[in-house]
């Protein structure tokens, strides 16, 4: 897992942040903190408020209440010195279609006090073969990579990535992940929103789940929502000529058999796995398709956001 950022200075601090659009409360008082060099993934269903939260941090929206600091400054004041230290990747590719990749990057670099080298960033996002191509001739994935490059050209300390790999093919996603890992290896801070749980799992030091305008869970992806304490699911193929009752399972378990696969949940699987494998070896059998899984980040996410939606739906007061 990533390095411990507990002692690093705070890059972003959000306390009691509220925002409404008309009668709709988009954010109902959220808190979170990001330390320098950390990757924070903001997760949440569409309309949960995560884009609103990010746009307030980026300085695009004014908040209604609460305190927000980004690199020690209030983003609402839109200081130029802050904008020079922040890189933003929006969901749209927003580059003049008639400029070439190198021209667009050079133009953007000219707006920053200490930009990175254009050639280096073009290489970094894998567009060296397209450096002289006009932006309008790039494929969708290439435009997204250009977008990422445009956000990095100013040598930012803090980078906001709004669904950065949507529409990428699997290998392009892996490459983009490597770029993000490289950014935090250089000590930069990254805030990313995504719908892909594997992306959050692969990149984030911490995850904050927003649902219905509130933070419903936050923490490292491996322990989010008590994942590390959750039940473990064990599956394997029922050996031929064996009845379920012959398996050496503790009496309190209630195994199921589905399509020839035995399946059960257990809090602590060490002992039962030992008994099972010893039993199988003793009979000269193998446990085909043996799988031992903890709930995935996606399972936890779905249950967390499902609960939040349930609270909203019942009209009951929130905690």
């Amino acid at each position, binding site marked *: 897992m990533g390095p411990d950022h507990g002692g690093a200075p705070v890059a972003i601090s959000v306390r009691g942040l509220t925002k409404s659009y008309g009668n709709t409360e988009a954010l109902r008082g959220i808190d979170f903190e990001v330390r320098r060099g950390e990757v924070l993934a903001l997760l949440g269903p569409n309309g949960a408020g995560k884009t609103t939260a990010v746009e307030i941090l980026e300085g695009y929206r004014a908040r209604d209440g609460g305190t927000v600091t980004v690199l020690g400054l209030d983003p609402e004041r839109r200081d130029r010195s802050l904008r020079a230290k*922040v890189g933003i990747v929006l969901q749209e590719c927003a580059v003049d279609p*008639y400029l070439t990749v190198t021209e667009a990057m050079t133009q953007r670099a000219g707006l920053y006090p200490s930009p990175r080298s254009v050639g280096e960033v073009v290489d970094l996002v894998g567009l060296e073969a397209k450096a002289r191509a006009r932006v309008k001739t790039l494929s969708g994935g290439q435009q997204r990579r250009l977008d990422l490059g445009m956000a990095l050209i100013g040598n930012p300390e803090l980078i906001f990535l709004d669904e950065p790999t949507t529409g990428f093919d699997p290998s392009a996603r892996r490459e983009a992940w490597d770029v993000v890992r490289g950014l935090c290896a250089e000590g930069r801070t990254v805030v990313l929103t995504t719908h892909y749980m594997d992306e959050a799992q692969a990149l984030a030091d911490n995850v904050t789940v927003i649902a219905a305008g509130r933070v419903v869970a936050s923490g490292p992806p491996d322990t989010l929502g008590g994942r590390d304490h959750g039940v473990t699911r064990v599956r394997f193929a029922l050996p031929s000529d064996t009845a379920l009752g012959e398996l050496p399972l503790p009496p309190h378990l209630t195994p199921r058999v589905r399509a020839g696969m035995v399946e059960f949940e257990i809090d602590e699987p060490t002992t039962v796995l030992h008994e099972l494998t010893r039993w199988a070896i003793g009979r000269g059998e193998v446990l085909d398709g043996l799988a031992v899984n903890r709930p995935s980040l996606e399972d936890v996410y779905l249950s967390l956001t499902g609960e939040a939606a349930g609270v909203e739906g019942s009209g009951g007061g929130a905690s």
Partner: protein
Amino acid sequence: MNDLLVAKEQVRYEQKAYWRNPMAAVFTLAFPVVFLVVVGTTSGTSRVPGTTLRYDQYTVVAMLTFGLIAACYTNLAMSICLRRDSGMLKRMRGTPISIGSYLGGIIGSTMINVAVLAVLVVGIGMGFYHLHFPYHPAATVVTLLVGIVTFGAIGLAVTVIVPNADAAPAVVNGIYLPVVFISGVFYPLSNGSVLSRIAGYFPVRHMIEALVSAFEGGPGSGLRGHDLVVMLVWAAGALVFAARRFRWEPRHR
């Protein structure tokens, strides 16, 4: 960062993008030139009443005005609407660039386009319609600058009422084409007619009158203070409106 230097760089990139996009150049340069040739050669050579210009020479002034409006108003409004919808404006706003540098780049580039247009149109007029080089060059330049400011400001203001890029051509052209027609761009208006009185409320007619005066031989500076003031009042109103209501982002989806 030096804002002026950034603005200069912006002009360079605006120019690159402009000349690579055939549509923009067709509207701002080819249309006025083609109209000039077609309308000019069919206009005859008698004098326009109340001026020393012939009908074909008047067409040069009218098409210079027409092209300037296309460059400043139409092209500016369309490209701002497109950039707003595509997220380019939002993107720009997330960088350290100042609004002045960004707008300065666009306006600087537009001024170059107007200069190219003026050379082209006046050159054709001098080559084919016996037009004299403008008798009052300073007044011509001042009038063109006031025109750029006025129609650029109105172009910015009109982006406020354009809901999205798809609607931009309809709204932008729907406002300016009727005004252009009643303002004597395609045929000189007779003074005192109902149309000319209506057109007097809008800046296009004043732009033509001011340019005619700068092109004609005559005593004085060739500057038409009254016409320029009417244009600047429009410019000020449009700028105030734009400054208060300008949107950097597409309307909520």
